[in-house]
């Protein structure tokens, strides 16, 4: 069955003009699709373009950023019309839980009033109706409805994170972008938040993009994941495929670099650092750190190719293996 995906990102490019005239190409041709009820992980090291990608999909990057590509919600392009065409979609169709969501509430207003605000703005509910709905949302994430009258500083970190999720759900969005929603929380609260996100995706049919650098989080919460490197998608597939049948050396090394509670293995590290994005990269961006680079990696950039069912990877080794097996 071929259906229009709920959320579709096509060939997204983001670059920043630096003060000295050079360009920093932060996101280079990212594409992915997302269906209702699905949780997609977006994984990678710091600075690989995860957060930039999802900020770009909501048109939230600063004016120094240039964005190209298509963002479609139910087949409708939202970015090309500029700020005025994205704004009605924000929070109504696509909402976000921010990195450091602890500070996403203005300290001088009550939590409830900030949850109610987008409902009024987008015409979802108003007055007592909106306030009751805010209470229900807070209950849904495990916070007593009466806390709506309290100020953000009266909440604990975990509560604020939950309240941020409740606020994101205020206008019944179809898509939820969660940027490192569990960073800085203790493990118990982390697990609760992830469980909450998973159950919300199930119950409300939300499509969730979960940005994280934490692979266990991906394994726990996501069905599919995209591994990003140097602003590009290196590999995208089901979490199972990525773990058991990875077709990109970076994915393999990333998994090897994750500590295993029961395993005896030492944690491997990936030597070197990602390439600078303010220079043009020739060949494969990962080749300097790759343990199996071949000659062609230095001259040609590998493109994403299908390596399994709904599983793509950008590595020359896959083409080599394919040509040998043929």
């Amino acid at each position, binding site marked *: 069955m071929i259906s229009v995906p709920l959320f579709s990102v096509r060939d997204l490019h983001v670059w920043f003009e630096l003060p000295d005239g050079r360009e920093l190409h932060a996101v280079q041709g990212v594409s992915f699709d997302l269906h209702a009820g699905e949780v997609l992980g977006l994984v990678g090291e710091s600075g690989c373009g995860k957060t930039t990608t999802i900020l770009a999909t*909501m048109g*939230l990057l600063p004016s120094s950023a240039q964005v190209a590509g298509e963002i479609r919600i139910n087949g409708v392009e939202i970015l090309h019309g500029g700020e005025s065409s994205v*704004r*009605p*979609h*924000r*929070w*109504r169709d696509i*909402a*976000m839980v*921010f*990195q*450091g*969501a602890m*500070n*996403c*509430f*203005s*300290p*001088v*207003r009550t939590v409830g009033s900030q949850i109610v*605000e*987008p409902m009024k*703005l*987008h015409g979802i509910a108003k007055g007592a109706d909106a306030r009751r709905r805010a209470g229900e949302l807070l209950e849904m994430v495990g916070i007593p409805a009466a806390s709506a009258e309290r*100020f953000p*500083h009266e909440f604990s970190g975990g509560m604020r994170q939950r309240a941020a999720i409740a606020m994101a759900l205020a206008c019944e969005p179809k898509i939820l972008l969660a940027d490192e929603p569990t960073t800085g929380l203790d493990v118990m609260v982390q697990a609760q938040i992830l469980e909450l996100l998973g159950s919300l995706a199930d119950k409300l049919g939300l499509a969730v993009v979960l940005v994280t650098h934490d692979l266990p989080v991906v394994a726990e919460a996501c069905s599919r994941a995209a591994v990003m490197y140097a602003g590009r998608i290196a590999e995208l597939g089901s979490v199972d495929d990525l773990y058991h049948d990875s077709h990109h050396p970076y994915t393999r090394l990333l998994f090897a670099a994750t500590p295993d509670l029961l395993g005896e293995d030492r944690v491997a590290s990936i030597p070197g650092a990602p390439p600078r994005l303010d220079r043009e990269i020739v060949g494969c961006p990962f080749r300097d750190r790759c343990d199996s680079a071949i000659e062609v990696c230095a001259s040609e950039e590998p493109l994403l190719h299908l390596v399994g069912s709904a599983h793509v990877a950008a590595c020359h080794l896959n083409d080599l293996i394919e040509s040998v097996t043929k």
Partner: protein
Amino acid sequence: MNTRTLDYVLKRIGFSIMTVFVVLTFNFVLFRALPGSAVTDLSRVPNSTPALREALARQFGLADSKWQQYFIYLKQLLHGNLGVSYINGLPVWHNLTTDLSNTIPMVGLGTLLAIVFGIWSGVTSAWRWHRPADYLLTNTAIAFYSFPTQWLGLMLVMIFGRYLPTTGMNDPFAVGGSAWSHALDTFKHMILPAVAVALTLYGQYTLVVRSAILEVLGEDFVLTARAKGIPARTILRRYVLRNALLPIVTLIALSIGYVVGGALLVETVFTWPGIGLAVYQSVLSRDYPMLQGAFLILTLSVVMLNLVADLLSLKLDPRVAE
């Protein structure tokens, strides 16, 4: 009002009272630490004798020991008596009310202009951050903030002296005329000194407002507000200004408090008969009671307004009482 808030309010009030007492003492010590006294000043006449000096000292209450003087000063203050000016022999209170009634309209107008223009220029430059309007407004503000007041005053006199009066409060030759024409004349005299006050003060507002707003603009809740689809102007009002208000309110309260201190340099340049000019002349003639009186009023005013700012911030930011 819960106990925490009450605790905060009482603490602020107690702190204010302490401040006033400390400043009273400083006022006493400070002026007596200056070399010379009203006696050496007044007895600098031909044929002055030690007897004359002694008589003057006794008359001014300067013959007693410093401690005795201090306690007499405190005792008189408690009775609301600020003493008598050494120079014109009138009660200090009388002199000061006359000076204040001249100062408050002029410096008040200047301060008001500075607040309005400074806040506008600060908000605009922050909103147009790193764009030409920002560079223009910020650099102009820094320039005016750093010009010496007396130089700025002289420039105003040189440039606008042809069109507007530059000395005193009234035209000494305009005798008679209605109350209305008298007031209009005073207002004309007030323009240049008030503008001088405004120009020296507004730069500080621009810089404080700009940096307060820029700080808030970088906060996560501003990005969140954009993500919620809230229009930019509403974000500026509801989120940015509301959170940047705290340092701005404190600054406004303090500069209102300083209005009664007069503007010493501006009043001297424009010979505006206000409290600043009075302080300048009192320092020259070591008129202790006048100086003590003027500084007492300034202290009370600044401390009061500071207290007001503290109480307002309690209202503006729920975190303050914590």
